[in-house]
């Protein structure tokens, strides 16, 4: 007698994890929260509830990665970002599904947003070795000195991923993350708490793109836990508040800027929640997390 055969095959669910220091840990708290379909409210997955401690670990990882990543050649950074675009392209179907449920779109409407995210990575991949050429300067000082200004990465940037606007869940995330790392910064990203899946999956793309561990760290969880931790952390150099929506309270732009002022972090203020992430980005974000360094040297025999 043979065993009865069944037509049913169970899908293997993915355990979504944080992306910290190039690894995929669970939250140190061991806690998760339910992520649901934006349209139907159906349960989709359990996302790790990243904590303040997870955020601090991510900052450490980002700091550790900064020297190597900022010291890598711009060409190398461009190659890696392009590799990330290739990896994303290869997982187009998966991301289309995740974006669709995250933003309440049909697969047909979600797919072009994934394509746009791929293209955005390509756009920034091409920028890595051109930024210094548009943001730097040879300065004709009135004296016998060679004087050159070059842009350098600010350091560890805390990024609050977009929580709204057309294409926010993947394209928006890529649009804020890519310019940060293209210029040699490292990032700790607070993912959109209501739509973390494309972001958590992005870690898988980045992990297979030769991106050194710690350059990008992705934390899902409550913005009011993660963002204030980034804003008050003395080893974070800058904040991108793109996804901040709270008008008041610890996760409001005001409170976060006040906390950031303690160590004079550079702060990029929130994007309107209605921002259309498909619009051409321009160079604003690319040029934001840069420090201009000016080097003088005498010219003499």
């Amino acid at each position, binding site marked *: 007698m043979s065993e009865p055969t069944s037509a049913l095959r169970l899908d293997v669910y993915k355990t979504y994890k944080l992306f910290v220091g190039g690894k995929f840990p669970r939250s140190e708290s061991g806690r998760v929260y339910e992520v649901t379909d934006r349209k139907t409210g159906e349960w989709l997955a359990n996302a790790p509830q990243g904590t303040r401690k997870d955020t601090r670990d991510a900052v450490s990882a980002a700091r550790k990665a900064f020297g190597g990543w900022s010291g890598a050649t711009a060409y190398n950074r461009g190659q890696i970002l392009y590799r990330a675009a290739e990896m994303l392209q290869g997982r187009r179907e998966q991301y289309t599904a995740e974006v669709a449920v995250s933003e309440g779109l049909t697969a047909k409407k979600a797919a072009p947003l994934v394509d746009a995210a791929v293209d955005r990575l390509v756009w920034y991949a091409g920028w890595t070795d051109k930024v210094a050429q548009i943001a730097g300067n040879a300065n004709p000082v009135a004296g016998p000195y060679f004087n050159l200004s070059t842009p350098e990465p600010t350091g560890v940037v805390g990024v609050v991923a977009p929580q709204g606007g057309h294409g926010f869940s993947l394209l928006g995330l890529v649009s804020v993350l890519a310019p940060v790392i293209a210029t040699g910064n490292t990032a700790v990203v607070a993912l959109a708490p209501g739509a973390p899946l494309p972001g958590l999956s992005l870690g898988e793309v980045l992990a297979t793109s030769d991106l050194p561990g710690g350059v990008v760290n992705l934390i899902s969880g409550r913005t009011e836990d993660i963002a204030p931790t980034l804003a008050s952390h003395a080893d974070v150099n800058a904040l991108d508040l793109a996804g901040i929506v709270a008008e008041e309270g610890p996760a409001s732009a005001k409170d976060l800027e006040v906390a950031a002022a303690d160590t004079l972090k550079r702060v990029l203020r929130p994007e309107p929640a209605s921002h259309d992430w498909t619009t051409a980005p321009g160079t604003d974000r690319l040029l934001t997390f840069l420090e201009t360094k000016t080097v003088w040297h*005498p010219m*003499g*025999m």
Partner: protein
Amino acid sequence: MSSSPLSTSGLAASGLAEVASSEASLRRFLHGLPGIDAVGLQARAAGLGTRSIKTTAKAYAIDLAISMIDLTTLEGADTPGKVRSLCQKAKNPDPGNPDVPHTAAVCVYPDMVPFAKEALGGAPINVAAVATAFPSGRAGLPVKLADTAEAVAAGADEVDMVIDRGAFLSGRYLEIYELIAEIRKACERPDGTAAHLKVIFETGELVTYDNIRRASWLAMLAGADFIKTSTGKVTVNATPANTLVLMEAVRDFREATGIQVGVKPAGGIRTTKDAMKYLVMVNEILGDDWLTPDWFRFGASSLLNDLLMQRQKLASGRYSGPDYVTVD
């Protein structure tokens, strides 16, 4: 001028005596000297040049400058008459003013030394002779030695020799070291004394400040009593910056060996204002020990009249003019 015997013990004690034991070690030493940043050096010289020297300080500095002049004539057209006239000026620069100091020396070609000695008589003014195929230095060693011997025999108190810039620029440092040492010997007199040896680098032909620093140390190691910038015969002569290099060298050399060496900028120093800048440098780089004609000289000719006019102005309050100083 006091003629301090060369203290080789200082060199030995400093460990520098062995430096010239071979071309390789001499080169290693000279190229191991700290580099000079040209822009920084020039800025320092220019900064000292902004010192404002007024009233009593100016009066002091004018007289000091006059007393430091090697009053010079080095022309193909020089004659005994011209040299005699120069010597009178050296002894008594401002005929109406006996309190004006005399110059330190007159500086002439070797064949003019006897006329200068005669004209100066017993005046406490040295006769300096340029020698060693001045100004180019392009002659064989026997010629240079004979040139020197002639000057010393004729009574020169000081010999201003030139180094072989060609040898220097092609890196033959030991050859220059030996040349200086040979000339030094030729400066010796039968009575055991010696004419003071000033070594001219022709800084304008060495071009870089690093070269000028190396030349300074090379000359001091070989026994120079004075180091001197220029012949006055090329486009770039003494400048505050290249003289500053010489001053730093003598300062550091004394620090290392205990041996004091004099400095003489020459050529292109024409005005009181120029002279003040050099004296300010002596004052602030070297200090009191060098603020004397024994250790600092100006190689100049027209400078003297400008100093005299400025001196008259200080005394009378009126600006003087060229008709009130002598043309020599």
